[in-house]
């Protein structure tokens, strides 16, 4: 594997934003035990845009994404330093209620993970637990989110069927609908289409572009074409650093760094 001088080129600070920023991280480090997985990342994500994070395996993309809504808390050995600013609050600070925060910063995982419940309950479950009990309200949210996720037409007659009976692509869209049901501000997606076939992938991609008008999306992807197709901004991760970040168009056509260029032209990854 080719070596790049990452420490010099890594993004450590950023200029004052021109647009409204939904989330930003400063000098974010993530450690798993003694191993430093993320070595200081500063990025900001614009509201109502899709930002893609690309990079080779092991570059820390997923780890970074999971840090954003503190999913790393659930891994015993993980430790996070640096700040994650969301609505003028540091997500990592003890004042912030982690469960409330996760309602606003939702997440969709690489492998579809619907609950072993009915399609309806997959969406209604968390709502009920957070206090929405009325049937009419639940019905409305279920229908709306399934429509947003582009799944409504396929499942509207079988809402009481087990979610596990759906195809992989449908399950993933159900998981997106499930996350949307809580009306999050930001939706984090960790390679949402990597476990799916090409047709399902394109349906999910369509869904994401539709969602952009109401949500801020941060998508980790392995698939550069996908990043190019759907995202407005792209960050390139390498060895625990964010090396380059900019408008997707610019990153894919005129990358500033050799490393980025090598990666997107397929020299490694």
């Amino acid at each position, binding site marked *: 594997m080719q070596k790049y001088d990452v420490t010099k080129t890594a993004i450590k600070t950023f200029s004052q934003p021109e647009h409204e920023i939904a989330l930003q991280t400063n000098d974010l480090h993530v450690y798993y035990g003694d191993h430093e997985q993320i070595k200081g990342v500063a990025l900001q994500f614009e509201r109502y845009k899709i930002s893609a994070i690309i990079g080779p395996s092991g570059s820390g993309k997923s780890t970074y994404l999971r840090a954003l*809504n503190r999913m790393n808390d*659930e891994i*015993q050995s993980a430790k996070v330093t640096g700040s994650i600013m969301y609505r003028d609050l540091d997500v990592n600070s003890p004042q912030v209620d982690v469960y409330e925060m996760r309602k606003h910063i939702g997440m969709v995982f690489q492998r579809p*993970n619907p609950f072993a419940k009915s399609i309806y309950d997959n969406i209604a479950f*968390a709502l009920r637990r957070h206090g929405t009990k009325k049937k009419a309200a639940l019905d409305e949210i279920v229908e709306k989110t399934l429509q947003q996720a582009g799944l409504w037409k396929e499942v509207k007659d079988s809402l009481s069927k087990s979610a596990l009976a759906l195809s992989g692509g449908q399950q993933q869209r159900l998981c997106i609908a*499930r996350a949307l049901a809580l009306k999050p501000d930001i939706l984090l997606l960790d390679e949402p289409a990597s476990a799916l076939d090409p047709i399902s992938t394109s349906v999910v991609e369509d869904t994401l572009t539709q969602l952009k008008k109401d949500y801020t999306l941060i998508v980790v992807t392995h698939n550069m074409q996908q990043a190019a197709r759907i995202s407005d901004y792209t960050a390139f991760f390498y060895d625990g650093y964010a090396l380059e970040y900019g408008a997707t168009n610019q990153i894919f056509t005129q990358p500033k760094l050799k490393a980025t260029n090598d990666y997107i032209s397929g020299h490694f990854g």
Partner: protein
Amino acid sequence: MNVRRQDKIATVVLYLISGTIILILAALLLYILAAGLPHVSWHFLTSPARAFEAGGGIGIQLFNSLYLLVLAMLISMPVSLGAGIYLSEYAKKNWRTTFVQTAIEILSSLPSVVVGLFGFLIFVVQFKFGFSILSGALALTFFNLPLLTRNVEESLASVQGSQREAGLALGLSRFETVTRVIVPEALPGITTGMILGAGRVFGEAAALIYTAGQSAPALDFSNWNPFYIASPLNPLRPAETLAVHIWKINSEGIMPDVAAVSAGASAVLVIVVLLFNLSARWFGKWLFKKMTGGD
């Protein structure tokens, strides 16, 4: 050629071994049932035991066994569920957890006599519960807890981690994720374990001899007020169970039909335990279908 023959021989031997295992069980069951079933009748199942005359039944013992079982399971189920949840969801991988797990393993391999005597000194003597269903149920809880806890822990651990992430990412606490998502999914396994545990409890004798006692005073089945001393529901009355009864009459029985009663009681005991086993299987499967098939 030699290798092929070896393969043949090995296969035959393995078939023989498996056949022997099945034969042993079949012989055991047939023996118990053949020896006992002729004595089992409605009268035998419902009438009280007689100390020194023929014609006694096992009605009260059977009721005691069931009541004790229900009480023991009521106490041990929530505790083992909580403990299992802690071990599989919260416990960190360190020496303390290893210590706790070793402690549980030891409790599970403890001879039940020791548990019974401990229960005797603590509940019967110290807490003054006397020889009672309550003392027995608590002793059985001790005896049952490690197995149930391990079963809960294993069942929970077998549910995929992605389900936990799903719940957590929806802003649910780990506890609610576990109780509302993971436990339901693990329910088939947990239920099977609980029912098998119930079977063990039902057949346990050594832990009960000194706690629930070895006498079965007549019960007044018309009075269900649990405070009445002869009420079937009174948890502070002494209660000889079926398994203890078998042990006792084999040891000290002076009724003329000892052999018949003990064979009959053994048959009933085994049948009930088998029913537990079969229902565990059936119920686990049914539950799994129900859980994954929507409401």
